[in-house]
């Protein structure tokens, strides 16, 4: 893109293609394109447009940068991390990965299998909990998710654990009754642990298109999403939808999942993400 453009029109067309193909969507792309329309191209054509790659990097990093803190464990209070998101987006896998990472810092983790709906969801989390060496709340398919969360918080207090990781069932944001179920879980957390540090992470699959914006909007409206966990970034999709989401809803990306192993979890770094996107 940057070294093969022969003139302004060609460059802008290639830029638009790059941004759309990365799933930024039409309106974020249009706004970014606008910033480039303003530039006097002639003086930079000599440098093979490399200047523009840097300018684009700055624009994208600027959108993605956030003052929101990374996931920090507060030693003096109960830390609750809840995973939410649409079906198959990687919640259970990342719950295991977060537990794996935190196990190295602190042994006091309890896993809460609040997906009591999907077949073998509890068994799936159990296997991950065992691999990590973390305790898990006992429950059965069909149990009330809010009760399981309640049990999780009580158990954490009783067993002196200060990290609670809650895996929830996948749900489409358009299913009001299922979104209400999540709101109920949050109310239980606020009632039973109103002094806790609460992180509500929404998983977004990097292969998803524009519908991820609606997903973020609805989950955020229902719960207040504190961070996005962008999953399946080891594929060929760029995950640029998080740029549109940050632009429209100001929800920051906090984690990147880059594979199916327990250690394939990384803190989100805007610079690295943008470099990979423009690659």
């Amino acid at each position, binding site marked *: 893109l940057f070294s093969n453009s022969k003139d302004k029109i060609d460059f802008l067309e290639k830029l638009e293609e790059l941004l759309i193909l990365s799933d930024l969507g039409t309106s974020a792309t249009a706004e970014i394109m606008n910033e480039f329309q303003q530039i006097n191209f002639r003086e930079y054509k000599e440098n093979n447009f490399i200047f523009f790659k840097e300018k684009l990097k700055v624009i994208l990093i600027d959108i993605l940068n956030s003052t929101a803190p990374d996931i920090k464990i507060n030693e003096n209070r109960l830390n609750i991390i809840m995973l939410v998101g649409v079906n*198959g987006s990687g919640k259970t896998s990342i719950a295991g990965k977060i537990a794996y990472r935190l196990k190295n810092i602190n042994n006091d983790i309890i896993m809460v299998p609040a997906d009591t709906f999907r077949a*073998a969801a509890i068994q799936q989390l159990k296997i991950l909990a065992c691999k990590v060496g973390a305790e898990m709340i006992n429950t059965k398919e069909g149990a009330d998710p809010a009760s399981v969360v309640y049990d999780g918080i009580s158990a954490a207090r009783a067993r002196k654990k200060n990290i609670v990781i809650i895996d929830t069932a996948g749900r489409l944001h358009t299913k009001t009754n299922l979104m209400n179920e999540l709101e109920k879980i949050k109310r239980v957390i606020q009632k039973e642990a109103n002094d806790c540090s609460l992180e509500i992470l929404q998983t977004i699959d990097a*292969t998803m298109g524009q519908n991820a914006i609606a997903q973020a909007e609805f989950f955020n409206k229902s719960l207040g999403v504190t961070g996005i966990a962008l999953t399946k970034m080891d594929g060929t999709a760029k995950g640029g939808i998080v740029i549109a989401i940050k632009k429209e809803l100001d929800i920051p990306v906090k984690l990147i999942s880059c594979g*199916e192993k327990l250690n394939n979890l990384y803190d989100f770094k805007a610079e690295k993400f943008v470099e990979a996107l423009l690659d």
Partner: protein
Amino acid sequence: SLTDKFQTIFKKIKNKGKLNENDIKNCLHEIRIALLEADVNYKVVKEFIDSLHDKIQQEKISESLSPTQQIIKIVNGEITLTLGCKQNDLSISPAPPTIIMLVGLQGTGKTTTAVKLANYFRKKGHLPLLIATDIYRPAAIEQLQVLGEKSNLPVFSMGKNESAVNIVKAAIKYSSKKNNDVLIIDTAGRLHIDDKLMNELQEINENIPLQEKLLIVDAMAGQDAVNSAKVFCDKIKVSGIILTKLDGDTRGGVALSLKKVLGVPIKFIGIGEKVDNFEPFHPERMASRILG
């Protein structure tokens, strides 16, 4: 909506006869945005708009329809035509058993869809058998077994220590004793760039007589979907696509991209997590959904 945008453009058209070039450009601009917002692939949209331009140019403003209705009808017609296909049912092998393999990226709904498919065949009078070959994902086999049990559908598994192709071979031997005439293979989710796992599919494809190889695609998929789908198609010659999670509000433009680029028929859609949330694919309904 697209209709409102067109109304604004056409408010200015007073004369009957052909649309002028500028009106057409404005319409195409709006259609292009609508398709991109619906997640239709960028390159597919480009080709589609070019072919639409000629169609619209030849169109005479009708007496009975408003220009808006007319243009929408043309676009809808073109999308429907592209999405449609003669062969949209599943073929049965002349010599049983009919063996169907489900493949796709991680989390697209293969395991859930496998059970839906088995149920669909049972309702048609067949004796299906589900085969669990996901030997990687934690509790994958249990998931298929629990789902099978809930719907009273048999599941064949050999645990995680046999290779996928050996599990299928054993399942075929087992099914002949049990008179199962339709075998549905649930495979592990995988990346198209994972050579080892793509070779696993190729090995099954080369050693097992597969009647259908169905690519399971998430309807919320974005621009990269065509890239991954193409690799699956090239590797094992996919014979059909099933689009899942259409019970949400995604526009599902991936359907148009896949059909246009790969030409593989979309046979069914998943519209929920329950076993009977499963329907044949309707091109016209999908076309309206994509246009939004």
